């Protein structure tokens, strides 16, 4: 673990709002003392300096390091296997869907893109999202979360515990799942809560429904106004002095006598969360847990994205026929390897019908 020197600082727990952690003096995070009050009285903030950096196997022999890895891998396998049958493991009572219910979403990996064709021969592109090791980690009641609705924390894609803080590992161990690379919060209604540790699969979503996908866009760094906002710039010739890619005017003149807030100017482009809304789900592969989502999705290949049912008012009633609160693999429903939307052309079937 890196050893840090802190003079004064405030460290917020990434998962719980409203609590502050104060660490006094030097030392590893094991000496953390937590105070849950004094939200309005922060300590003075400053810069932390890294005095030295170590990694978990620096002071271990090769045998021990490989043993650690082996033990951890077996441990994860066991944890995942234990959680494979949630319905037999004292599940929370399953409640009925009502008008206005919101169910949980998933965390997926963006694999890449592919063309698909409809039955009438039109071509569309889809993005493949793989749902890998997705588990519900924690349930936050209304009071714990933000006072208005319950929340479920969902994590996706196992990762190694060696480069994480002890408190985050403890957080996952409480749920009985291996540590996850990304943890997303989903605001749900009270009738859609799920017991922590339940695995979530791609069949939670069904073809024909519409989704919202959120992810961090590819970072482009500090960019000028032409790339960032598509401004036209100025001509290359005809007497332009040192002005070819500048924003030009910043607004009206003497009456406001100021530049309005939010005026488009050069700055950081990308590397922030964006949501693609209203994406149709064309196909679900249950063997590899892959969702085929229409169009493009923010983020680079192999990045983690947050997928949930769309909030568009036109598609409000779509959750009526969907598995509620989620799809349980050890339940009664037997699903085929692939589920297709009605108007999608499946490669094994007969040729396209011309309209």
């Amino acid at each position, binding site marked *: 673990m890196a050893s840090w020197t802190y003079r004064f600082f405030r460290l917020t727990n990434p998962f719980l709002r409203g609590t502050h952690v104060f660490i006094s003096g030097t030392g590893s995070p094991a000496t953390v003392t937590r105070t849950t009050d004094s939200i309005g009285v922060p300590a003075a903030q400053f810069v932390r300096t890294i005095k030295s950096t170590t990694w978990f196997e620096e002071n271990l022999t090769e045998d021990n390091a490989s043993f650690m890895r082996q033990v951890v891998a077996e441990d994860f396998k066991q944890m995942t296997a234990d959680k494979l049958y949630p319905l037999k493991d004292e599940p929370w009572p399953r409640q009925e869907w009502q008008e206005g219910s919101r169910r949980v979403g998933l965390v997926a990996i963006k*694999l890449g893109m*592919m*063309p698909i064709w409809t039955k009438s*021969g039109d*071509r569309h592109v889809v993005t493949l999202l793989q749902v890998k090791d997705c588990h519900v980690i924690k349930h936050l009641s209304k009071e714990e979360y933000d006072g208005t609705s319950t929340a479920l924390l969902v994590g996706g894609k196992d990762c190694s515990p060696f480069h994480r803080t002890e408190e985050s590992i403890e957080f996952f161990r409480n749920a009985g799942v291996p540590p996850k690379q990304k943890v997303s919060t989903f605001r749900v209604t009270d009738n859609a809560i799920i017991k922590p540790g339940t695995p979530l699969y791609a069949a939670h979503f069904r073809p024909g429904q519409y989704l919202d996908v959120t992810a961090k866009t590819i970072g482009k760094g500090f960019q000028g106004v032409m790339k960032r906002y598509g401004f036209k710039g100025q001509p290359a010739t005809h007497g332009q002095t040192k002005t070819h890619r500048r924003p030009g005017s910043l607004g009206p003149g003497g009456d406001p006598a100021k530049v309005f807030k939010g005026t488009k100017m050069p700055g950081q482009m990308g590397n922030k969360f964006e949501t693609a809304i209203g994406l149709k789900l064309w196909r679900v592969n249950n063997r590899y847990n892959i969702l085929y989502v229409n169009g493009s999705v923010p983020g680079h290949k192999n990045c983690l994205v947050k997928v949930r049912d769309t909030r568009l008012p036109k598609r409000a009633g779509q959750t009526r026929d969907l598995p509620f609160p989620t799809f349980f693999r050890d339940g009664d429903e037997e699903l085929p390897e692939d589920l297709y939307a009605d108007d999608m052309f499946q490669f094994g079937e007969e040729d396209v019908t*011309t309209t």
Partner: protein
Amino acid sequence: MAACTRGAAEVLSSIRAFRHIQHQNGRFISTSLTDLAVGGDGRPPKFTPPPKPVIIDKTQSEAPPRRFLSPEFIAPRSRTSGLKFVVERKDMIQRRKALNIPEFYVGSILAVTMKDPHASGKTNRFVGICAQRSGSGLGATFILRNIVDGQGVEICYEMYSPRIQTIEVLKLEKRLDNNLMYLRDALPEHCTFDFDLKPVPHNPTADVPINTVKVRMKPKPWSKRWERPHFNVKGIRFDLCLTPEQMEHAQKWARPWQEFDMMKHHDTAKLEEAIFKEVQAELSK
């Protein structure tokens, strides 16, 4: 009548002599002269042509069929995870089971029939030379070029589109280049193919014939500067359209170090081998 019988007697004697010779030589070629000899009706016997001799040459072993893996199965070097290619390949194989996509190269002449709701008969057929193959996976495409009524036409077909009904190879051959887009600036005689071209039978075991024709070009300016080294065009008769000075001037854009750049080397032999085995196994199921 007398002449006929006399003739028949001569024939009979010659047949006897012939058969004697045959037995002496050891080889036996069956003839139907015996039928002729019988002819008891008096009518002239019906002529049945002798069957073709079947020569089984046992000296050479049966040649194995040519190995061919369509280039779109091999993905370009990228950070995409292997699972995406696995899933895409499954779909490609499934489509290939429904539609036979034959082996073809750039330079082969193909005929493609596609579903078209606006055409009479609901299908349209296009014949052309394959000028380019690009794309990988399900979005793989090929461009067919032909000159119809004096107008050059290029159509880009997606190989796995469900609108394609048949892909037929009329003439299987390769050319000196992998990309024949320079045919746009070549004389029309090199790109005109009859729509009723008869399919030329090709050998499934021997190597694909390479057509070493060098095309004559229209006068410059061309759509691209084909003489420049990065196009690496071998199939143009530059001696007829460019002076040696112009050829030398084009070499200024040469990048001779690129052939030694190890970072650009990407050996796909093992990958190709594995994918070929998988595809063969799945298609033969």
